């Protein structure tokens, strides 16, 4: 064995072969790594493959798949690479960083409530209305109000896909047993806080568990419910330039009192439910009513449970309801060829929005929204009139879906509904949280 360890500097034959093997392996590995670093999106049949980012999981994700395969099968259309990311702040963080980092997707979904953060930060390409018209997705295909909501500072930044409002689901069997249905088999209209709570208490007697299913234990749910009820009273949260808090404390207090009444005084709703829990509660018939966005309709249809959907009830003197809009945006830094391909993709998706509407959303694309096929969709078309009364989140750099304001406000309202703080403390906490956000230096 001694010949293996010759004096320093001389290499016996066996040592050289091991060294050569290692060198060869290193070169091979380097080659593999280098080749994988090359751009992975090639050209498919002469047209670029477009990258599409979205946050649609669950039932929405399945609908999206259907719409995307229709796009892929249409002849001569570019290839598509679709990526689904987790809903909420993880999605918007990644989208912002991708735009800044110079490798954004070619087209992405964005809630219109986030335009106050993305548009002024220069993360989105302003879209030329003529270019959009040439692709069949111009301003004539949308209602003026919806088209305006996609603008920021006079420029168009997004192409709206849908409006998704907060609605009320109800279990037809339970409500029948509770005597809440009218002669036509539909729910009798509920109006005012006492009416609503009486209905929930009647449902609770039937189920033995809860009357209403809701999800206080969530970063978005409590905000949506609060904003709906508060807007029904005509309340506003921020000034239009988002520099001042314009809360009406007595109205906020009234709403929080009502929310606490649901979970603490009458106990018609659980104070602990998270989102998946709330879906399960309604689906298994442990609650007669469900307050949530319309997007769970396919979940309940697939479970073959007896349910129907109506607009959110008029509790505080109005029909306003919180909603948000999904839209397609093009991050900055996407070149012209890819932009054209992306707009073709958007056109195809909008034409398929009937499939999307089956998932519960109210389509923004007028040719589909006014079609007979959409009007025949039940229960989705029951609440399509709600689109006139929706209130979108106040526009600011820190607000919108999955934003710090929504998370903070929901945490405060959750604490009120769980009885950890009084409604009075909730008002103060909400106000001071908003003030902290306004006073923080804007990061762009």
């Amino acid at each position, binding site marked *: 064995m001694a010949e293996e360890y010759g004096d320093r500097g001389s290499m016996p034959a066996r040592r050289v072969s091991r060294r050569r093997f290692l060198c060869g392996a290193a070169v091979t590995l380097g080659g593999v790594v280098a080749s994988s670093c090359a751009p992975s999106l090639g050209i498919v049949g002469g047209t670029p493959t477009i990258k599409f980012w979205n946050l649609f999981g669950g039932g929405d994700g399945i609908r999206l798949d259907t719409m995307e395969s229709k796009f892929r099968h249409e002849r001569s259309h570019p290839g598509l690479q679709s990526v689904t990311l987790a809903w909420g702040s993880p999605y918007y963080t990644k989208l912002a960083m991708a735009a800044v980092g110079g490798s954004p997707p070619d087209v992405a979904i964005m809630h219109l409530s986030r335009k106050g953060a993305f548009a002024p930060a220069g993360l989105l390409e302003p879209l030329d209305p003529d270019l959009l018209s040439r692709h069949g997705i111009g301003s004539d295909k949308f209602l003026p109000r919806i088209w305006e909501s996609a603008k920021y500072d006079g420029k168009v930044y997004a192409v709206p896909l849908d409006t998704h409002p907060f609605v009320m689901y109800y279990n037809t069997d339970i409500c029948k047993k509770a005597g809440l249905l009218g002669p036509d088999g539909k729910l009798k209209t509920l109006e005012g806080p006492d009416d609503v709570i009486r209905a929930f208490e009647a449902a609770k007697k039937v189920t033995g568990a809860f009357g209403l299913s809701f999800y206080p234990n969530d970063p978005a749910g409590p905000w949506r419910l609060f904003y709906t009820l508060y807007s029904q009273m005509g309340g506003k949260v921020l000034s239009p330039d988002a520099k001042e808090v314009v809360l009406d404390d007595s109205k906020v207090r009234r709403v929080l009192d009502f929310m606490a009444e649901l979970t603490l005084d009458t106990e018609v709703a659980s104070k602990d439910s998270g989102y998946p829990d709330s879906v399960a509660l309604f689906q298994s018939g442990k609650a007669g009513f469900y307050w949530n966005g319309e997007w769970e309709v396919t979940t309940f249809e697939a479970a073959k449970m007896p349910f129907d959907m109506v607009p959110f009830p008029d509790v505080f003197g109005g029909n306003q309801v919180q909603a948000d809009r999904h839209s397609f945006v093009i991050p900055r830094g996407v070149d012209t060829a890819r932009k054209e391909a992306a707009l073709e993709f958007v056109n195809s998706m909008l034409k398929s929005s009937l499939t999307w509407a089956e998932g519960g959303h109210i389509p923004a694309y007028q040719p589909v929204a006014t079609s007979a096929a959409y009007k025949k969709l039940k229960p989705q078309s029951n609440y399509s009139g709600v689109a006139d009364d929706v209130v979108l989140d106040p526009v600011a750099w820190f607000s919108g879906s999955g934003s*710090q304001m929504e998370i903070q406000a929901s945490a405060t309202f959750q604490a009120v509904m769980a009885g950890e703080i009084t409604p009075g403390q909730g008002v103060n906490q909400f106000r001071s949280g908003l003030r902290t956000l306004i006073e923080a230096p804007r990061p762009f």
Partner: protein
Amino acid sequence: MEAPQEVARPTTRVSSTKPAARRRSDLTGLIFLLPFLIAYALFLIWPIILGFRMSLFNWSLVSGGASEFLGLENYRELFGDPVFWSSMWHTVLFTLLSTPPLVLIALVLAMLVNRVTFAQWFFRFSFFAPFVLPVSVVALIWIWLFQPGYGLINSYLTSLGLGEVGWLTDENVAMITVVIVTVWWTVGLNFVLYLAGLQEIPRDLYDASAVDGAGALAQTRWVTIPMLSRTTVLVVVLQILASLKVFDQIYVMYTQGGLNYPVTRPIVGYVYDQGFTSYRVGYGSAMSYVFFVIILAVSVIWFAVARRREGNT
């Protein structure tokens, strides 16, 4: 005074010139270290310097670069920020609550498994297995176990006639829930370290103590535990540092399962909220530097204590 050259004790050589062979071997060593040193400087040292610079500006995630120079304004803001202090407290509380069980349970498990003669591999595997699971899987399992109503744990409690517990939502219980999840998930590593330490203790110490009339308890107290002291120091230090960095399981349980975030948010979680969700990287950096100084102080104190203790034994 120079030591005589004839004496072959290189450690006492005081001369300032090394022989050529020694210098060449030093150079070879440095060349081998160079790739790692470059990566270290690029990905650790440089970002630390850059991060400190970020904390002095209103650095934004989205506008690519320094905005206004704020000086120490970010630091002043964080010292007055109640959420910063509550987040620091949550991290410290988590460390205090999780370290003792993670050390003691691991020790007890290791001592028990060490005595098993039949199929010991099975027990080693079972207690270590949770450690290899990714955090999302662990969080998902425990979220479903802790659900109110039909969750397994609450349904057992109610079937025994006890009341339900709001594991995820109750502000007094939420942190304990996180500790339970973390102990189940990570005790395996400490357990393996202790097992290795136990198997290094020479058998004859036990035999000698048995001759002196020591029972099992006395043996544990006077032989096993002192012989494990080095392992214990390692385990405790690693555990404290790992606990101070807690973030993943709390964040996943919050976003996917409704964990009460305002009472469990760790400092790393708040840095993420401010730096990434709110795009204020400058402010997030300032917070992480204050946290870094605190961890550094803890580590320095601990190592000083450990070294003094080793010097005494």
